[in-house]
């Protein structure tokens, strides 16, 4: 396997882009990524794009062809990757494997979702497809409800509090406030989260990530050739993915994501580091409880201590480990297919010292963790500054 680096990144602002179409979002992110590394379309040999549910959101399929066509990249092979909310992260992994294998030297990896062309109720149905339609959604489950069940159990077993859940949202809004790409650039208080209405107890409106339009892209290059395009390539030193039961009730535990634990163990083995070495991480906080599970299952904190760690500021910007400096899914927004690629963009900028106001000091090792559904897919990447 060859070593692989990211040589460029680009994304749209995340938000409600009523004025922009699905294809415009793709082009905006893609062209930014190409221009940032001074690349031309002819340099790109293949394209991998994450997109979860365009069929339901905009009734468009065949996204691989659409991406290559709109970006002017024909006739290179272009592949859509779908793994629910982990589509972007898995697309990154597919691009990584394509370069690592030697099949290509330079590939583009993108992610996109256009969620606001339909109403929120229809969007909820589209997102429901990430769960088990026949045995969860059929019986009245919603996505917030599935994560609420995990939160309920975590609170029972470890004494995690609703205020600790709220602390995740408060921190991520604080970070989003500093990120020009974020959907929500406002700070919120624990009281505001606590007073937002229940969606599914114990989760309230401000425990949930929003509905978002957006796209993100990175360019991957064989590390041996990366310096021909940039002085500071960011190497992907681990890429791993694991699967678990689709339905929450069929999992061994509700208080952990086994797929995250397995993917993390594999990633740290590949990277030859342990969790303590990670300076900056983008984790999958589709709901506040998800970030608590993530920082425990990735090994940043002991199981059961996640809520307390967030409350005590151990995951804030420039603390023990800076988690979700982009604002996370909560504040930066969650265009599902784009999220995993946005996470890689954020780590790329952090490790290159380009994150401006939200910059983590002396960041050398970064990590992304992207989850599909309620934990049936997890994909983890570890990144290292190449100097």
């Amino acid at each position, binding site marked *: 396997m060859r070593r692989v680096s990211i040589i460029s990144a680009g994304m749209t602002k995340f938000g409600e882009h009523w004025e922009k179409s699905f294809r415009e979002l793709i082009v905006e992110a893609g062209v930014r990524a190409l221009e940032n590394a001074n690349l031309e379309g002819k340099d790109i040999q293949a394209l991998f794009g994450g997109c979860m549910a365009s069929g339901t959101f905009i009734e468009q399929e065949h996204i691989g062809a659409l991406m290559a066509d709109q970006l002017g990249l024909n006739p290179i092979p272009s592949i859509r990757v779908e793994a629910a909310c982990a589509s972007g992260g898995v697309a990154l992994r597919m691009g990584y494997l394509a370069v690592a294998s030697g099949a290509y030297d330079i590939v583009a990896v993108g992610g996109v979702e256009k969620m606001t062309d339909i109403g929120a*109720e229809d969007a*909820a*149905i589209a997102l*429901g497809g990430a769960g088990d*339609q*026949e*045995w*969860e*959604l*059929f*019986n*009245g*489950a*919603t996505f*917030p*409800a599935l994560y*609420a*069940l*995990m*939160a*309920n*159990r975590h609170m*029972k077993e470890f004494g995690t509090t609703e205020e600790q859940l709220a602390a995740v949202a408060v921190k991520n809004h604080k970070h989003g406030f500093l990120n020009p790409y974020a959907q929500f650039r406002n700070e919120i208080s624990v009281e505001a989260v606590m007073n937002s*209405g*229940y*969606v*599914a*107890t*114990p*989760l309230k409106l401000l425990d949930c990530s929003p509905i978002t339009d957006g796209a993100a892209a990175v360019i991957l290059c064989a590390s041996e050739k990366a310096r021909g395009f940039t002085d500071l390539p960011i190497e992907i030193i681990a890429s791993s993915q694991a699967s678990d039961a689709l*339905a*929450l*009730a*069929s999992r061994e535990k*509700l208080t952990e994501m086994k797929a995250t634990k397995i993917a993390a163990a594999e990633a740290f083995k590949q990277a030859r580091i342990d969790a303590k070495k990670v300076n900056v991480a983008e984790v999958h906080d589709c709901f506040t409880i998800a970030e608590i599970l993530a920082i425990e299952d990735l090994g940043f904190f002991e199981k059961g201590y996640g809520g307390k760690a967030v409350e005590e500021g151990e995951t804030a910007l420039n603390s023990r480990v800076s988690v979700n400096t982009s604002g996370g899914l909560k504040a930066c927004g969650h265009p599902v297919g784009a999220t995993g690629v946005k996470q890689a963009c954020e780590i790329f900028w952090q490790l290159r010292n380009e994150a401006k106001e939200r910059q983590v000091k002396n960041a050398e090792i970064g990590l992304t963790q992207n989850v599909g559904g309620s934990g049936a897919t997890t994909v983890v990447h570890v990144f290292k500054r190449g100097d």
Partner: protein
Amino acid sequence: MVSPSSSLIWREIPERYGMVGSVCQTCGASYFPQRKVCPKCRRKGKLALQKMPENGRIYAFTEVHSAPRGFENESPYFLAIIELSNGVRVLAQIVDSEKEKVKAGATVEMRFRKIFEAGKEGILAYGYKFKVV
């Protein structure tokens, strides 16, 4: 769900009406809903139908306030992961139960109920819910 077809509802009647799951005759593990492959034994597994017990305990629960389409009239309602007496966990609604009694560890029994009306034809989808006893 968006609008399940009548064939989907029809073919799942044994599971939804009678909670008929699977048992692996090689390792003894029970599954609900049914599986065609035992994840533990894989090709060595031998799956047969098995009726699930209709009683168990609440393992985790939530009160859903923001209901999906088709469930608006019931909002708010309790949704739980029930651990059946054989250890198999299922996700289902809790019905006909006093709010204070819905908590982890509470004993529940299966009840046959209407789940929702499906699609434009208004096909009635029935299935299992649970009541605290």
